Structures are given as structure tokens and as C-alpha cells.
């Protein structure tokens, strides 16, 4: 009933892909993502000190120390996200047919980038710490709906055989942006606007590299056997 070899091949490919893409992401993040984030955190701490209020729950809990420890744990998280995304890519490749080469994998990676990063970021742009935002659960719900919706929309657009279904795909792609993302009542940020903009640019680049690596590597490691 259950073919263990098929699953083992998928799992092995996903583990290697997630490990390598996660490490690559960690390296790319050091260029601009992490420096911008740390800078924004300084503004956040300053604002908190000025307000003389401790409104962060994190300060009482364990958190990695800045420096190598923080980078190490970020790498662990990136690898976990990488393996998670690679397993999803592998699951879809297993259903739709394993890729012929890493080039087909790149296309899957592009689809993942649009689904998991571009679409949700259009409504909820990547934010530096210290930015006011709507209720967390509302944002998480919108994020999840947008991702599922975009995934379905893209697959209809790519694989549907009739124009009607393809049109339905376009409607699905647009829908979450017509019902706009949850916004805070008042927008404010401890960090200056240029820093927030720089963070968006940095994450757009870093995630593109991450997703193309995920897709390409998964295409290579989970290739169709001749």
C-alpha cells in the first residue's frame, strides 16, 4: 500500500535541499537583511527606553545572544523552513511527476516564491521589528488564505485545460488583494522609513535566491529516474 522507497527518495532529496538552501539563505541574509534588522532593533530599543515601558514579552524569555549564537539559531530556523518548503515541493512533484532536470525545478521554485513570498508580501510587506501592525492572528489568517489561494490560482493557470478554469485561476490570484490585508489603526514605526524600504528590498532578493535554490536543488536531487 505504501511504497517506502519512493518516500525515502523524496525525504532524502528534501533534507539535502533544505540544508543547502537554508545555509545559502543564512549567508545571503548577512549582506543586507540582518544588518538592517539589527539597526531597526536599535531604534526599537531606543523607543522602548524613551517610553520607559517594557512592552516586549521576549525580554523575559530565553533568546539567543547577538553574534554567532543568534546567527547559528537563525541558520537552524532557515534550514527548518527550507526542509519544510522542500517537502511541500517534493509532495507536489511526486503527484505531478518528478522533474526532468534542475531547470524544471527552477520553475517550481519560482512558483513557490510567488506563492509563499510575493503574494503575501503585497498585502503584508516584510516588516522590521518595532513596526505597528494589526492583530497577529488576523495577519496570520490573511497570510494563510493568501498562500493557499495563490497556490490554487497558479496551478489552475499553469495546468488547467480550459480557458474558464484558467480565468478562475486569475480570479483566485487577485482575490486576497481585493479583500485587503489587515492593517493597524495607526501606522507607526520606530525605525525610519528608509530602513523599512531597505528591508523590503533585501528580503525580496534573499527570498528569490532561497526559492530558486530550493527549486533547482529539489529538481536535481528528486530527478526522474531513467
Amino acid at each position, binding site marked *: *500500500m*505504501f*511504497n517506502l522507497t*519512493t*518516500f525515502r527518495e*523524496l*525525504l532524502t532529496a*528534501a533534507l539535502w535541499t533544505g540544508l543547502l538552501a537554508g545555509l545559502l*539563505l543564512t549567508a545571503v*541574509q548577512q549582506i543586507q*537583511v*540582518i544588518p538592517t*534588522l539589527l539597526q531597526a532593533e536599535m531604534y526599537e530599543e531606543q523607543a522602548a527606553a524613551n517610553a520607559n515601558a517594557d512592552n516586549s*514579552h*521576549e525580554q523575559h*524569555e*530565553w*533568546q*539567543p545572544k547577538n553574534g554567532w549564537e*543568534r546567527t547559528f*539559531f*537563525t541558520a*537552524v*530556523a*532557515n534550514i*527548518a*523552513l527550507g*526542509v*519544510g*518548503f*522542500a*517537502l*511541500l515541493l*517534493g*509532495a*507536489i512533484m*511526486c*503527484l505531478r511527476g518528478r522533474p526532468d532536470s534542475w531547470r524544471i525545478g527552477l520553475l517550481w521554485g519560482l512558483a513557490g516564491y510567488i506563492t*509563499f*513570498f510575493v503574494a*503575501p*508580501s503585497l498585502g*503584508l*510587506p*516584510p*516588516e*522590521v*521589528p518595532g513596526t505597528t*501592525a494589526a492583530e*497577529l492572528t488576523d*495577519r*496570520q489568517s490573511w*497570510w494563510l488564505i493568501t498562500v493557499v489561494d495563490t497556490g490554487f490560482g497558479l496551478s489552475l493557470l499553469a495546468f488547467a485545460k480550459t480557458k474558464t478554469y484558467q480565468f478562475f485561476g486569475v480570479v483566485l490570484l487577485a482575490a486576497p488583494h481585493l479583500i485587503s490585508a489587515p492593517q493597524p489603526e495607526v501606522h507607526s514605526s520606530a525605525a525610519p522609513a528608509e530602513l523599512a524600504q531597505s*528591508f523590503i528590498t533585501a*528580503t525580496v532578493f*534573499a*527570498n528569490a535566491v532561497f526559492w530558486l535554490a530550493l527549486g533547482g536543488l529539489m529538481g536535481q536531487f528528486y530527478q526522474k529516474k531513467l
Partner: protein
Amino acid sequence: MPSTPVLLDNAQKIPLNPPLSKGEAEGRGIAYKIFPALLAGMLGLALLYTAGFSDIAPLHNTAHDGRHSASFPCH
């Protein structure tokens, strides 16, 4: 008439593996595609939830920078 094409033609007509019955093909689809994909998908979602969404403080703090970078809604 050259005899080679005729020989090739005959060779192609001999099936290497007997064709699968409909039920066998379906069973293979489930064992080779559906179940492995389902299991991989569930494992992937569990990992993504733990690293990207769980609000348990140590997990959140470990993945904090990764979540901001991936544009996951974070605190």
C-alpha cells in the same frame, strides 16, 4: 525488401512487462504517489508551523530573524 525494419517492428510488439490491470495501476498510484506525497506534505507543514508560526517563546525567539526575513507575520 530489407528485412531489418520488419524485425524491429516485430520486436516492438513484444511487451517487456505485462500491462497492469486497472486496479493494479490505481494501487500503484496510491502507494507510489498519493501516500508518499501526503506524508511528505504533512511533515513539511508541521515543520513550517513549528519554525514559522508557533508562538512558544523559545521557538519564536530562535526563528525570529528567519520569520522576519521570510515575511511571516511575527509578533
